């Protein structure tokens, strides 16, 4: 049975092009989202959101955020994300997508109220399903 897309727009933030490609393909194949926006640095991701503050339809419903990136890493991104207006933060739910499940990272992020989930790479059909369930439970 064909499922409806969980979200409209997903943003992938990762410096690893291969990983972005993998994530994009699995999202497309599982029809998790209608659209996928790829940003290969934290900096360009922030710039995109900044540019679309006033066009909410272009703001992602879900951000898959990598931690380990040069210069603006996942932590810096989350710090900067705090500065956005409330409606932006409300709309953009964040899922951490990291290659390590290091406890140090999890502890650092778990307090952040906009991060709804922590997923270890690679992004799979199963993990996307669990995000889908989480989002629907949050909506109801």
């Amino acid at each position: 049975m064909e499922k409806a897309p969980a979200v409209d727009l997903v943003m992938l933030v990762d410096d690893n092009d291969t990983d972005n490609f993998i994530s994009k393909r699995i999202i497309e194949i599982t029809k998790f989202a209608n659209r996928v926006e790829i940003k290969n640095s934290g900096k360009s991701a922030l710039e995109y959101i900044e540019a679309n503050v006033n066009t909410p339809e272009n703001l992602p419903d879900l951000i898959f955020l990598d931690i380990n990136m040069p210069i603006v890493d996942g932590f810096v991104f989350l710090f900067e994300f705090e500065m956005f207006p409330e409606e932006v933060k409300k709309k953009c739910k964040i899922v951490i997508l990291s290659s390590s499940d290091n406890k140090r990272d999890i502890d650092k992020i778990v307090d952040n109220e906009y991060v709804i989930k922590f997923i270890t790479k690679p992004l799979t059909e199963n993990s996307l399903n669990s995000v889908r369930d989480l989002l629907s439970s949050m909506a109801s």
Partner: protein
Amino acid sequence: MIIQRQKPLIQLISNDHVSAMELEERLLSLGYVVLAKNKSFEQGAAVFESHQPELIIAEWDDAFIDDIYFQQLLQELSVPILFVSLALTPALHQLCQTSRMVHLIQRSFADIDLHSAIQQVLGTASIYKQYTKYEEELKQNARLLQLFFNQALSAIFFAITPTPLRWRSELQTPPLAVLRHLQETLTITKHNRSLAEQYRLKPEEGLIKQPLRCLFPSNEIYEHFLATLLEKKQCRFTFSKELADGSVATYEGNYSLILDEQGAVIGVLGIQQDITHRKRHERLLKISKQRFERLAAYSPDIIIVAHTQDFQKIRFSYVNKPNILGFKEKAIDSPDKLMELVHPQDFPTVRAYFQDISQKNEYPPIQVRLKNQAGEWEWFQCQYVVLSPEDEQEGKGYYEILFYLHNLTEKIRYENQLKEEKANLLALIESSHNPIFSVDRKLHVKTYNTAFLNLIHHFKPALREAAGQPLSGVFPKEELNFWLEHIQKTFLGEKQEVPHRLHFKEKGTVHYEVAFYPIIEESQITGVTVIARDVTEQEKMRLALEKSNYELDTFIYRSSHDLRAPLSSILGLLQLLRMPVSDQEKTHYIQLIEKSVAKLDRVIYSLIDFSRNMHLPLEFGYVDVEQIVYDCYEQLQSLPHADRLRIHFINGCPEELVSDENRLRIVLYHLLSNSIRYQDLHKEETHIHITIECHQDTWTLSFKDNGKGIADNIKQNLFHMFQRSNEENRGAGLGLYIIKQVVQKLQGEVEIKSQLGEGTEVIITLPLLKEKTIVL
């Protein structure tokens, strides 16, 4: 006619003139001298007084009895009276009976009768006068005797037997019958007050008529006393008796037998003293002597009592132990023998000390070494005291000399040991580079080492001697509290270990670990020892260790991340491969898998390089830098656009270079890898200039490219682990970190000059090694 050699003067008294004439005539014819003829005693009194006749002849008249003069004369009759009478009247008879000076001649009598009567009267009177004189003397003596008897301090008694006894003198020991008889019959007949007092009798009581036995404690002793006395006639005897009041008295006396002219025993005379107190003193003296000897016997010291009369010859009469200095008993019996054992060095001192012994002065003790039987030297403190004899007349009696030899061997040995230990301790303290000092109860510095003095010189450069200084005298105000507080805490009994920091102008901050230990003497804290251990090095090492631990932690964290990243990519791609996708897409996935594997491979290589640098020993040899660069370039051909980079190599060094080839290879590999990956592809051509230059002691390797360059805000952290230079950097962030680590291992330095958009120059300076050397 009787011829009188001496004519006695006679006074005649008669109221009958005829008879008076007749008597005068007859007396004259007999050759006597008649002084006067008086009718009565009253009339004759004056002549009697003035001429002192030798005889009064009076014609008896009973009326004389009433005559006052006559009666007066009779009272103190110094001249005999011869009465002439016809009849013997009762009054006359009575008179003749009562007075020995009154005589009678009855008429009628012949001349010769008168003469013999006169002669008899004169003779009697003469004897009587003599007798009276003796009697007076006797009375006087008796009075004196009585006085002595009563006043004597000694008790005196007589005991008499009513039946005197004799035994044959050739028998030395009296027969038992004599003893028994005396034992039963001797009775005290006279004694003085002292005897009663000796036996604690009441003033009204006495011992007269008591058997002699009652003075003695028992029949046995009484019998023994009598037997001795009978044998010796006179003896000294001592005995004790329990008295009625329960006390025991001791008596000593001289006793003698009283014998009559024939040698028969009449009784016993005793002169006896109560010697109870004397006995007690004697006993106490004996006890104290015993005590002294017992005490002396247990003393570790040598105590000698010596006697001498003239100080020429001194003999030991008492030594408190049998074997002094291990010699056999009585081997050392004089000061001369003792002198033989004196150490040669001490000999003059000892001789001088004993020289004045006859002066009886007391000198302070001297220390002397004596050789014991085993031949070892023992230390003694020697002193003597001379006691004068009781009878201090010259040449009489014995002087007593007390020698006291106090054994100091142990003490001196301990003292020397203590001195040595103290010296050792001081040397030990001194040898420490850590400041050490101790304080006493008054918080004054006692002992300290040079390191401590050097430390104090930072605060008080002028201080030369710290001993005896109060803490405030060695520490400045701002420091004093710290030391004072912990020393005072330590005095309460607890050891303290406290970190402390001091700042010095020259040395900077010095870290100390200060330990405060209580000094305990006989369970009392008498001071505090303070050891300030310089832990600056350890502190530095600790910080370095902390840093390296952190780095290691980060390294593991990041490398696990970097190792896992390509793996998770591969996993993701494999997942996609299983999806229903076109063959063209599958081919793309496989290419991506290959790319990830290559990336994983590079990360692993980097880690191996890193590990090799850390653990492999340095191996120096001649290196051909250019060859290594091209080898590395070969290896890096798989990187995108690797062939675009032009390499220009200039070697300005005349000699062959010496280095660790493996490590140099790591450096060159990563430098080249960076230059290839961060080429600025917008530029028409990309190149790298590799220049080698030699200097005095160093050589430099310069890598200058025209790549992207590095932003200023990144530069300061360039050499940190996993640091990546820009947003597009897809590396692990290990390159420069590994370069830095390796160059440090090679005792060199790395410098980076870079301009964003212009390019980057990495300059590595390494020591110029002339020969093949191996430095581990």
